[in-house]
């Protein structure tokens, strides 16, 4: 067995000990994981972002407009002193403002409008079963939307509709749970395969 597999196997088992409870072995592995993962992100960000997008174009190619993001970025460091802390609000303003500006049309288009028009399907165009499905989807969308209606107490017709909506929601959550279990089990099966085949060499 090569050294890398040995280390990987030991660390895998160390993390699994958490299933019993928190313990020094898990804690040591956790501390190492946190440190190494921050280090990894730091290196990748340094090379892919700061070098490729900022320092090289700015200092080698003289792409001067990049001074603006450089200044904004530097303002983040204002946080280290109480008196200059407010400077970091400017880069924050750029991030939050542009994020909001982009989000409004993008969310409206992809999430809301397209989903609305996909719900509209002509009836009596195909089989009777297709019509049943269409009506169920329409009812599901409308009743679930009514569950998210906040401006009035849910009594009477609204109460009935939102109650029906909860059943649709639970159907969705249940189905999603079932599908997600499948993913989670696959990952675990993957780790077992590593331990049995590569680490312990019990299967081939």
């Amino acid at each position, binding site marked *: 067995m090569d050294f890398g597999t040995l280390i990987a196997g030991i660390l895998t088992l160390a*993390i699994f000990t*958490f299933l019993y*409870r*928190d313990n020094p072995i*898990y*804690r040591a*592995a*956790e501390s190492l*994981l*946190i440190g*190494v*993962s*921050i280090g*990894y*992100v730091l290196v990748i960000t340094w090379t892919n972002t700061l070098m490729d997008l900022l320092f090289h174009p700015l200092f080698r190619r003289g792409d001067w407009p990049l001074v603006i993001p450089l200044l904004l970025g530097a303002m*983040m460091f204002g*946080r280290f002193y109480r008196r200059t*802390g407010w400077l*970091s609000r400017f880069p*924050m303003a750029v*991030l*939050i403002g*542009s*994020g*909001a500006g982009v*989000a*409004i*049309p993008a969310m*409206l*288009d992809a999430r*809301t*409008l*397209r989903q*609305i*028009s996909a719900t*509209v*399907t*002509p*009836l*009596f*165009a195909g089989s009777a079963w297709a019509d049943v499905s*269409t009506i169920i989807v*329409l009812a599901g*969308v*409308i009743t679930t*939307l*009514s569950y*998210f*209606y*906040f*401006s*009035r*107490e*849910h009594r009477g017709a609204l109460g009935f509709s939102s109650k029906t909506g909860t059943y649709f929601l639970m159907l*969705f*959550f*249940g189905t*999603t*749970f079932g599908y*997600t279990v499948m993913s989670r089990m696959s990952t675990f099966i993957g780790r077992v395969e590593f331990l049995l085949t590569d680490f312990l060499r019990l299967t081939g």
Partner: protein
Amino acid sequence: MSLVSAVLISTAWIDPDRLPVLICGLVAIGIVLYTTFWRRGQERARMREIPGLKAVEEAIGRATEMARPILYTPGWGGDIQRPTTIASLNILSHVADKTAQYDCQLVYPTHDPVIMTVAQEVVRESYARAGCEDRFREDDIRYVSSSQFGYAAAVDGLISRLQPASIFLLGTFEAESLILAETGNSVGAIQIAGTDSTIQLSFFIVACDYTLIGEELFAASGYLSGDASILASVRAQDSLKVLIVVFLVLATIWATIAPDSSWWRF
């Protein structure tokens, strides 16, 4: 008007494919602005109750009584541009107001350095408002790791060591959701979760005491802060929903009568 738009389109300033989105966007924005600025003063309608909300007070009270900390985390999936994160920070501000008053420790681990910066600001202000800025500890609002399972391992460790009485999982969560919720459960914490990540909702519903589903998170931030403008926008959203339902019903009837029509396609 049509002349202006024709000119704009011909010079490629307006993308014709996106015109429907622009029109719908302007209508929606109009409704939100109207509700926010002109109807704000009107009497507060009787809003529907959100079960998770009362639990927020209960959770803070419980932590105070037991003299154990509160753990609050916004999940690995969001960044500061995400509206969910902003709603979560709003609720954080409310929780911090209370923990400052009752002198209860509030621990906030996050995966995003920008969120950390903003959260520090929010919590510091809450403590200042309560007149006890000296009790604010910057270290409690901490950046743990940007990697998904590095973050999950770190928060897991925090939960098992601090044994918080209450845990708030409000924001955008990915696969780490159940790891955190089950660990929180094993230390006997009361857990309030809320997210717009639909997959994780199914896990939160199974594993947590209270769950704010999707939009409920946005509404909750309005209820808790008592901010009139947020409540107004909740009302605006409701008006838009009514419009959508009317549209769906009308368009389906129309499409059935005239299957070749397409005005309802965006």
